């Protein structure tokens, strides 16, 4: 599910290439000059909080926004100076922007007719079948539900066989259940038609379930780019670590390095970090942020600490809170090295002693540890996530 799709040979003529593209509005920089290549046929997500420049980037590919600097290439063609109606690119707008005076058939046929294609009936009907709206062809947009309108918007764009389909938060207006359903639907359509999709979203789960490659954007810059699993496991900044899922951070000092492993000191204890998973400078005595995901951690009552296998990273603490959510229990552990350590424990064998106030030992496989440069805000990306969820 989270593997990068095989793309055809490099230098393929269908890639979207952004070179030094940037956008400023007066003194405000919406997008800092960035380079980005979207391989042909891939499902690419631009992920970030509102105002991070992801939509502006998308609109520059569509031609709806003129870049202040840089160029946009579709394959070998430089389209930077082309108006939107001359670009082989189509957009699914956030609010769908269906033409209210035209019925569904004519909405979908719009692009074909503008390109002078006379016999559109067969193509439109096939496209409406693909999005399962064959019955609704003669209805007006306002007679359809949100999910149906969304599918019309997709059909209206896809029928033109664009080189790239741009999706601007296409699922934002739908409720949660419908959104999940449409995510799978879009993914199915993308696999079926094989067109490059560039999807803008602020929903990290959406980006991770759908995309082959995710670019996490923050304050007009691309923070990190990669396959969803890679971004999740190996975040290179605290923003990415916090924006994609939840991360625990421990401030530690470098003690020594040997055999591909870094030994770190934190609050009297020692932690091991694989060198390959560290993106911080590693001079002895230097500061490193040690990160670990909540689901990688095991929780053992202090009385049983002797039974923990050697070689695991361990820290001690006291349970401050526990929330039972069915498949797992989410603990918040107060530890000397980190105030709110989050731990998700699968509900396989529940230890009845693990209640708030209990002394515990947290331990995890050192391979699940990642190291980040300590010279950054630990909480970057945290607030935004909560904001979007609320």
């Amino acid at each position: 599910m989270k593997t990068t799709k095989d793309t055809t040979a490099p230098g393929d003529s269908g890639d979207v290439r952004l070179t030094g593209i940037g956008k400023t509005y007066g003194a405000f920089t919406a997008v800092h000059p960035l380079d980005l290549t979207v391989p042909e046929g891939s499902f690419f997500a631009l992920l970030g909080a509102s105002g991070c420049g992801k939509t502006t980037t998308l609109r520059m590919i569509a031609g709806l926004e003129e870049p202040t600097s840089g160029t946009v290439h579709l394959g070998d063609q430089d389209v930077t100076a082309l108006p939107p109606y001359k670009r082989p690119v189509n957009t699914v707008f956030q609010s769908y922007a269906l033409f209210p005076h035209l019925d569904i058939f004519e909405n979908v046929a719009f692009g074909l007719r503008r390109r002078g294609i006379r016999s559109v009936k067969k193509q439109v009907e096939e496209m409406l079948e693909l999005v399962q709206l064959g019955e609704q062809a003669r209805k007006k947009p306002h007679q359809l539900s949100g999910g149906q309108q969304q599918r019309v918007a997709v059909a209206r764009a896809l029928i033109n066989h664009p080189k790239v389909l741009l999706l601007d938060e296409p699922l934002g207006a739908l409720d949660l259940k419908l959104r999940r359903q449409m995510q799978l639907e879009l993914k199915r359509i993308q696999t079926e038609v094989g067109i490059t999709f560039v999807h803008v979203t602020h929903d990290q789960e959406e980006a991770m379930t759908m995309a082959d490659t995710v670019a996490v954007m923050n304050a007009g810059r691309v923070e990190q780019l990669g396959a969803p699993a890679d971004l999740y496991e190996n975040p290179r900044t605290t923003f990415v670590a916090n924006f994609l899922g939840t991360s625990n951070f421990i401030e530690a000092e470098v003690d020594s390095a040997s055999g591909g492993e870094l030994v770190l000191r934190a609050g009297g204890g020692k932690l091991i970090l694989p060198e390959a998973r560290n993106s911080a400078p590693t001079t002895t005595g230097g500061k490193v942020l040690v990160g670990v995901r909540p689901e990688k951690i095991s929780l053992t009552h202090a009385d049983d600490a002797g039974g923990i296998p050697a070689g695991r990273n361990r820290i001690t603490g006291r349970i401050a809170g526990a929330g039972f959510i069915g498949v797992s229990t989410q603990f918040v552990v107060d530890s000397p090295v980190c105030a709110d350590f989050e731990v998700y424990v699968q509900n396989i064998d529940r230890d009845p002693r693990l209640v708030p106030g209990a002394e515990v030992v947290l331990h995890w496989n050192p391979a699940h540890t990642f190291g980040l440069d300590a010279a950054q805000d630990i909480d970057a990306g945290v607030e935004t996530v909560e904001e979007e969820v609320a």
Partner: protein
Amino acid sequence: MATLTQAPPVAPPPAPEKRPPRRRGRWTPYLLLLPGLLWLLVFFALPVIYQASTSVQTGSLEQGYEVTWHFATYWEALSEYWPQFVRSVLYAASATVLCLLLGYPLAYLIAFRAGRWRNLIMILVIAPFFTSFLIRTLAWKTILADGGPVVDALNALHVLDVTAWLGWTAGDRVLATPLAVVCGLTYNFLPFMILPLYTSLERIDPRLHEAANDLYAKPSTTFRRVTFPLSMPGVVSGTLLTFIPASGDYINSDLLGSTDTRMVGNVIQSQFLRILDYPTAAALSFILMAAILAIVTLYIRKSGTEDLV
């Protein structure tokens, strides 16, 4: 009171003791309609009935009139004054087309491009209403006066040669010609065109323009296929608000025209107030009303606005 106002249910209320509060709710809409209905009854319906009876009366001012169901008055009025009818429709239609041509770009500009100037331009559009219709029309008499700068300029540019050849003006003057009357009508009814146009253009989501652009429609096609169709409700109400009053107008023809530009409004006015032939005047009024009604119905059918959102 608001808490008692409920939508009347389809099924009759099952419990009779619940009726008193419900009844009040049920009558509220009619109570709200009452003042308006009374007003229309006294000042519209009664005069119309009175005029209808006048139009089929015969007699004279000295001996008094009585209803004789003399429908021939209609035929006589029509056969004598049909040129004025035709002229009214032509002038009103020309003024309406001119209003649309002048008003649409302005309404478009206010709706999509004016930015912070929007309110100022709107005030300028409405500003003429601060003075009376009569004074505004009299001002045009000065503007189009013989030997005035406007007429001199038009003469120098040989524009009047063209309009004279078309029959819109006579010789080297503008005043007392059809052109002057149509210009006056256009000027006086322009705001009635701009306001509904602006309202319907302003409601169009600018993202629809982007969507059309994105779907290979160049700006002119976007206008033709998206903007204009979506502004049709404004076009229809604007043209109606211009055409209907313009076709019954007599002030513009009176002040800016001549005996050759008399419209049906002028005839009705002189029949009523100068010749005192009330039946003919009433019959003319009814023919005008019927004609406008017919034209408007046909127009609305043709433009298919009921199909628009």
